[in-house]
C-alpha cells in the first residue's frame, strides 16, 4: 500500500486564488468606504459653502429688512450629515483618524450654524428653535443611546427643529469653549434649550414641554402638508 502523493502546486494555486479573492474584496470594501467618506466630505463642503454664503449675505444686508435673510438661508443638510457620520463611525470605529477629522469638522460647522441662526433670529425677532445636546460614546453614558433615539425622532417629526449634537470628549477647542460657556457638567446626556440646562434622560414629552414652539412647528408642518 503506497503512500499518497501531495500536489503542492495545487495547494499553492488555491492559496493564491483565495488570496487574490480576499485582496479584491478588501479593495472593493475600501473603495466603497472611501466613496462614503468622500460623500461625507462633499456634504460638509456644501454646508460650509451654505454657511459662508448665508454669513456673507447677512453681512451684505446688515441694515436691510430680514425679508431676504430668513431661516431658509440655513443649511438643511445637517441632519442627514449627522446620520451618515454616525453610521460611518459605527462601521469604521470611533478611533478611525478619518472619522475623527470629519467629526471635528462637523462640530465646527454645527457651531457656526448655531451662531448664524442666533444672529438671524435676533435680527428678525424670531425665537430660535434649537436644541444643543452633549453626549459621550466612551461607555460612561448609559442613557445617551436612548436620548439619541429621542432626538432623531424629534428631528423627523419637526424638520425645522435644529439639533446640534456634540461629543463631550471631542478634542476641539471650539467645543471645549462651548462647554465652558454653558458650564456643561460631565453628567450626560446634557441638553440645552434657550440657556436652560437639562441633565439626564429627557423623553419626547419632556422636550415638547420644554420647547412650546414645537407645537407651532407641528401645526405649520401639518398646514404645509395639507396644502400640498
Amino acid at each position, binding site marked *: *500500500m503506497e503512500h499518497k502523493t*501531495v500536489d503542492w502546486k495545487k495547494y499553492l494555486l*488555491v492559496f493564491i*486564488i*483565495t488570496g487574490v479573492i480576499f485582496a479584491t474584496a478588501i479593495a472593493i470594501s475600501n473603495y466603497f468606504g472611501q466613496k462614503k467618506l468622500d460623500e461625507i466630505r462633499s456634504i460638509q463642503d456644501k454646508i460650509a459653502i451654505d454657511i459662508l454664503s448665508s454669513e456673507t449675505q447677512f453681512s451684505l444686508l446688515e441694515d436691510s429688512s430680514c425679508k431676504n435673510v430668513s431661516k431658509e438661508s440655513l443649511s438643511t443638510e445637517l441632519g442627514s450629515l449627522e446620520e*451618515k457620520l454616525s453610521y460611518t463611525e459605527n*462601521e469604521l470605529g470611533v478611533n478611525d483618524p478619518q472619522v475623527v477629522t470629519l467629526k471635528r469638522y462637523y462640530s465646527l460647522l454645527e457651531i457656526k450654524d448655531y451662531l448664524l441662526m442666533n444672529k438671524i433670529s435676533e435680527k428678525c425677532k424670531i425665537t430660535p428653535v434649537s436644541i444643543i445636546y452633549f453626549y459621550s460614546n466612551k461607555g460612561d453614558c448609559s442613557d445617551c443611546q436612548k436620548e439619541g*433615539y429621542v432626538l432623531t425622532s424629534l428631528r423627523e417629526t419637526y424638520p425645522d427643529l435644529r439639533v446640534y449634537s456634540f461629543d463631550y470628549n471631542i478634542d476641539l477647542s471650539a467645543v471645549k469653549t462651548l462647554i465652558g460657556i454653558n458650564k456643561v457638567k460631565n453628567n450626560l446626556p446634557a441638553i440645552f434649550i434657550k440657556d436652560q440646562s437639562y441633565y439626564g434622560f429627557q*423623553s419626547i414629552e419632556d422636550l415638547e414641554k420644554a420647547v412650546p414652539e414645537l407645537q407651532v412647528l407641528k401645526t405649520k408642518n401639518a398646514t404645509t402638508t395639507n396644502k400640498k
Partner: protein
Amino acid sequence: MQETTHLITYIFLFFSLYFEIFLLITYLEKMGSIKEEDKLIAKGVNKYPSVSIIVPCWNEEQTVSKTIHSLLNLDYPKNKLKIIVVDDGSTDNTWEIIQKFRNNPQVEIYSKENGGKYTALNFGLAKTTSELFGCLDSDSYVHKDALKHIITYFQNKEIMAVAPSVKLWQPKGVLQLFQKVEYGFGIFTRKMFHYMQAVYITPGPFSIFRREVFDKLGGYRHAHNTEDIEIALRMQKNHMKIAHAHSAMVYTVAPKTIKTLLKQRIRWSHGFIKNAFDYRTLFLKREYGNLGLVILPMASISIVSVISVASISVFNIVNAIISEYLKIKTIGFNFNLSNFSFDWFYIDTELVVIIGIIAFVGTATMVLTSRKMSEGKLRLGMDLIYFFVLYMFIAPIWITKAAYNAIFSVKTSWR
C-alpha cells in the same frame, strides 16, 4: 470587541473559501474523469465477484421488508449475491416479518441478543466467506443497478472499498426537502474526496468492502456509534484506497421531525469529533496526502468556525434586538414607510459582508453543481431555498451540541 470578532470571522472565512476553491478546482480538473467513469460503468464487467450484504436490524418492522426486497431486486447474478439479515434483539415484530424470506435461497436469517449495530455487522461478517462484503441499513433501499456500478470500481485491484451515493427516499415537507439538497451536496463532496483520495466515511447504507479489509484490520468497532467513520479512517490509516461510485444510488429514509434530525446529526458530528480525535495521528501528515493535510483539518476547523461564527451572529442579532427594543420602548413604535428612502450610502460594504457574499456564492455554485451531478440536470426548487434559509440556523445547533457532548463525554444514542 468588534475588531476581534471580525478578525476571527475573517480567518474562518479565509479557510472556508480556501476549501471551497479547492473543491471547485478539483471538480474542474476531474470533469473529464467523471465522464470516463460513466463510460466504464456503461461497458459493464466480465466477472462478477461473490458479494454478501448484511442487513442489521433493530426494531425496523416498518421498513426491513422493503429493504430486503430492494436487495433481491438488484441486477446481479443470484448465485453471487447473499443477503444476511441479522435481527439485533428487536423487541417489535421485525423477527416475525423477516420470516417470510426464510425459504429464499439468497437470504439467511439470524437473531442475536441486542449489542449494537457493530456487533450485528461482525456477527454477519463471521457467517460469510464471499469476496466482497457490504451492509445495508434496514431503513434504506438500493437502486437495482447500484451493485453493478460499484463492482466496476473493484476492477482496480487497489480499491479496497467503494462508497455509494446516498439520496433521500421520497422526501416530503420542509425538513426532508432541505435534507435532500444536503444529501445531493454530500454526493458532490464525496466524489471530490474520491479524487483527492480522501474519502473518510463509508456510509452505513451500501458501502462495499473487500473481505481482506476485515481480515487485515479486524472487525467493526463501537466507534462512538459511528462505525462507518471509524472503519474508513482505519483504512486510510493503513493506506487502503476508498472510491466513491457516484452513480450507485442508495435511498435512505430521512428523519421527519426536528427532534429526530437533531439526534441523528448530533450522533454523526459527535462521532466525527471523537473518531477524528482517535485518529489524530493522521492530521497534517504528508503520507496521508489530502486527507491529512486538507480534508481532516478543514473538517475540524469547520466545526470550530461554525460554532464561533454562529455565536458571533447570535451575539449580533441579540444586540440588534436589544437596541430595537430600547428604541421602541423610548420613542414608541412608529414605522413610517414614507420616511424610507433608498440611499446607497447605507448598504453595508464592510469586508466581512463582501467576503461573506463571495463565500455564499461559492457554496451556492457547489450546491448547484452537486444538484446537476446527482439529478442529471439543474432544477431550481423550493428545497434550495429551504436549504439556504434553514441550514445555517439548524446546523450550528447540532454541531455545538455534538462538540459539547464530545468535550464533556456525554454519550450519544441511535434513537
